């Protein structure tokens, strides 16, 4: 359990401290006193030990659009245009920031109206959704079948007979009035799409004996947890069937279901998007052409490592080749593979893996050029899970001090090391950024500063507390070899899965997940399977 102990001290320190120390010793995991308790159980039979609270989550705009696509066949993604923005923090699903506002409610109402009317005007889609052929406007039998079928998809559980009757009554009133069965369908779809159980992921469950505040999730609730984690969308009919048959209750059953679900293209999109949000390149500040090329490159690597090769997840950071076309090869200064994108070896270019990609290197730039501080902060916080406190109140981060008259960036940044109040935190950030400084904010290689050619860029940096490095390949090596990034991604994935920041109570399960990466087969799909198989995944602790 050596790894667990090291990871435990690191991860807990990251959560509990969030400070900057002048000696920079927080990185190496050398402070373990060896007395921590062991991390979460091997089989997890002790259930709720590894269980922090979780609250009511609203579908994000992204999830809402996916859900409409999957339950209505509507791929127009209207929610992203109409609903209030979900900020990326870095994930877009943190329920603590979700507000029920007038714009949200009116947006949901107009979205439901449009989706229902579009469905009514599209006979092929409409017939698929309805599932039966009405014999007349007042065909209550077909109306009932439709409600049961579509209601189950929209509310992600089977409806009671009373509930079906309520919707049928609504539908028949308008079917009669307009002498059109599908007028009834339309209002039913509108009502279901605005329903509390459609818009929110409602979890109640049943109380667990002897564990106050802990509830065992219902079968359908487990199905939704699976589908929104792995697909960012509603459960399929097959998943709902499995829930109804009670086939998601044991860790083995959930693991098997997760393996099946990971075969679906929706899982690939979700895993890709998780990495994009986590590493920050979900939106790129470039032209559409460059953005597409960079996203294609990174998505190809994620897909190759996690799904095609199904190799260890850390290969994302150590990959020796990259998927680029001639234009992007020229951009990077790499040998061109061909006009079509293909795998091109990095050779001795100093690049390895995803941290060499223009997508990642675009993140956390400053105005005009890279910002070694912002890059370092991003890596420290997002990739190492070590929070850096905000600057002191009397520091204007938009206007760094200018006492040092210097032409070259590296000299200008020396002020951070000279001023006592700055040094502690900047020592954690700036040297990381300077280690990537030979890569501009589009990921191109350079050896001199763009506006000051007399200033050469050494690319020398340091992961303070660990080791010096130069360039993304060496940085990746340090993050991987010291298990820093494995520990952190486990936290980040857990945060993403729960829609909130990781708390102390969550750590046993987080550590178990991290162990999976360092001691198990190291695969990301295994990490996901570990998470869904854990007993905590089928439990809820009330806030």
């Amino acid at each position: 359990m050596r790894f667990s102990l090291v990871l435990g001290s690191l991860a807990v320190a990251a959560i509990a401290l969030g400070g900057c120390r002048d000696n920079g010793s927080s990185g190496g995991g050398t402070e373990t006193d060896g007395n921590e308790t062991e991390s979460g159980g091997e089989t997890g039979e002790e259930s709720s030990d590894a269980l922090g609270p979780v609250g009511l989550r609203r579908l994000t705009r992204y999830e809402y659009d996916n859900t409409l696509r999957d339950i209505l066949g509507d791929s127009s993604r209207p929610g992203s245009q109409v609903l209030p923005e979900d900020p990326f923090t870095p994930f877009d699903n943190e329920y603590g920031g979700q507000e029920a506002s007038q714009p949200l409610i009116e947006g949901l109402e107009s979205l439901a109206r449009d989706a229902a009317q579009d469905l009514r005007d599209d006979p092929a889609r409409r017939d698929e959704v309805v599932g039966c052929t009405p014999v007349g406007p007042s065909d209550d039998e077909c109306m009932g079948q439709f409600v049961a079928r579509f209601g189950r998809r929209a509310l992600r559980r089977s409806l009671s007979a009373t509930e079906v009757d309520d919707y049928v009554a609504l539908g028949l009133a308008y079917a009669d009035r307009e002498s059109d069965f599908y007028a009834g369908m339309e209002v039913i779809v509108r009502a279901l799409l605005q329903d509390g159980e459609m818009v929110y992921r409602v979890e109640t469950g049943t109380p667990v004996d002897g564990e106050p505040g802990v509830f065992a999730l219902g079968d359908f609730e487990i199905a939704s947890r699976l589908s929104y984690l792995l697909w960012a969308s509603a459960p399929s009919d097959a998943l709902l069937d499995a829930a109804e048959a009670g086939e998601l209750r044991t860790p083995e059953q959930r693991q098997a279901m997760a393996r099946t679900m990971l075969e679906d293209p929706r899982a690939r999109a979700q895993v890709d998007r998780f990495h994009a949000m986590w590493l920050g390149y979900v939106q790129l500040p470039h032209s559409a052409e460059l953005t597409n090329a960079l996203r294609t490159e990174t998505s190809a690597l994620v897909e190759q490592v996690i799904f095609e090769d199904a190799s260890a997840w850390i290969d994302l950071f150590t990959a020796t080749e990259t998927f680029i076309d001639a234009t992007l090869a020229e951009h990077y200064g790499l040998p061109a593979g061909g006009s079509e994108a293909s795998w091109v070896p990095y050779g001795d270019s100093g690049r390895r893996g995803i941290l060499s990609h223009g997508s990642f290197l675009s993140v956390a730039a400053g105005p005009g050029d890279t910002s070694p501080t912002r890059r370092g902060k991003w890596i420290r916080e997002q990739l190492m899970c070590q929070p850096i406190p905000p600057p002191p109140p009397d520091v204007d981060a938009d206007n760094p001090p200018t006492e040092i008259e210097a032409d070259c960036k590296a000299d200008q940044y020396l002020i951070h090391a000279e001023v006592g109040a700055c040094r502690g935190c900047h020592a954690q950030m700036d040297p990381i950024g300077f280690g990537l400084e030979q890569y501009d904010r589009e990921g191109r290689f350079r050896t001199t500063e763009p506006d000051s050619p007399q200033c050469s860029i050494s690319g020398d940096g340091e992961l303070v507390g660990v080791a010096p490095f130069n360039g993304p390949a060496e940085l990746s090596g340090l993050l991987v070899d010291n298990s820093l990034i494995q520990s952190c991604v486990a936290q980040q994935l857990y945060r993403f899965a729960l829609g909130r920041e990781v708390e102390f109570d969550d750590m046993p399960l987080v550590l178990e997940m991290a162990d999976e990466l360092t001691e198990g087969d190291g695969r990301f799909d295994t990490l996901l399977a570990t998470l869904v198989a854990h007993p905590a995944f089928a439990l809820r602790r009330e806030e």
Partner: protein
Amino acid sequence: MVSSKFRLPRRTFLRGLGGAALALPTLEIMLNDSGEALASGGSMPLRYLVCFGGFSLVTDGSALTNDYIPMTTGPDYSLGTGLAPLATRGVQDRVTVVSGLSIPSQLAQDENEPIPPAGRTVHFHAHINPVVSGMRSVPWLANDTHIPTVTGRSSDQIVGDAVGHETSFASLVYRAQALLYNTGTYPMNRDTISYRRNDRGEIERVVPVVSPRQAYDSLFLGFVPDDPAEAAAKELELDKRRSVLDLVDRRMGGLVDRLGTADRTRLEQHYDEIRALEMRLELDGPKVGGECQQLPDPGNDPPLGGEFSGEDAYDVNAGYSDEDSRLRLMCDLMHIAFTCDLTRAGSLMFTMFQSFMNVNPITGHPYGLHDMSHNGEIPELADAMAWHVEHFAYLVGRLADTPEGTGSVLDSCAMLLMNEAGGGFSYENGVTQWSAHSTDNMAMLVAGGAGGLLQGEHIVAPSGANHPGNVVVSAMRAVGVDEDFGEVSGVMPGLLDG
């Protein structure tokens, strides 16, 4: 079908809706013989609007110029680049410039160093509170979340609370900038200028409507078309909405009861908003006629742009969602809302605090707006000022061109355009003389003739009454709301008769 339930709302979410079943435009027939007041003896409706732009008046290191602050005072003041649209729109004689405004600052970051009333901490971005609510910033401590908390009602909500019961909408809260354009961060209250007090006595933000389409749908909800067939179709649609929401409401009531305390609180907010919408559906719309006409359907919103963080992306839609069109439409909606007396209080955020919006499409200069204030040239920044002023001037002109009584709708308006910062000494580093992070040398545009507001002049605030909030207080007084603005109680001398 009329909703059969009509339970009494458990909360007072119907601020401004309570009891009011009518919202009629001010038609000629309702006026007295002289056309200066309502025939019923009531006075003409007075309207209040706060607009906001996330720009400063200097770029870092450049001294204050006359691009925004006129060189001359009094009437026919000189117009620099930033204010030029006042002339091209022909509204300079309706717009007063108040310059010399300042938000006082704590002098040093020390817990023993007081924060002045309605003042800010040393940290510039904490000034959102005094700008928005007239309250002093909450102390800015090391290791806290550094979200600039707002602790008082914004002026549009103060006015809305006072007069909103007269109209369909107690207030309208819009924002043109569609997105933050900045990933990896919380909004940090940069995205909102309206705050109200909720039923628990807490100050909470009023989430602005960002989609023009949604704003349009909501505003014209109660309009009955002239054409009988169209009117019947609209009535059927309204009826469907009522029936659908009735079922959604009943089911949500049951759902709330099944949840634990924290989840219940979350869902109750949603539930309250559903019921507020149901109540709005029960209101009679305005009588269309005269100047009060439904605008043509704007269609779908312009597509949303992605993140923007640097000038190398200026030629794409990164960081820009056609805010120019969005803002124009929102001005049109605010104009018709005032004209039809659908609301008497509004806020319209053009751009956010610390705005990351790409201004290249609207100014031809490759920056985000925030970046431009720090790293741009003054002439470039002046073009961004002018973009804001152009939209403000457009709205002023629309209202001026809309007859009401013996004058125009503008005659009964008090409108403000405030911006994020002035230019001057940096309290943050205590060194820089010309910082875009300064709340000295701020200025505000005031338009409209409500209550006899001074129009078409440039005045310089006297010391002792030079907080932007003093202008706000005067504007609120102009629409008959005699309340303090947070910790600011005095008026701006010379701005309001008497």
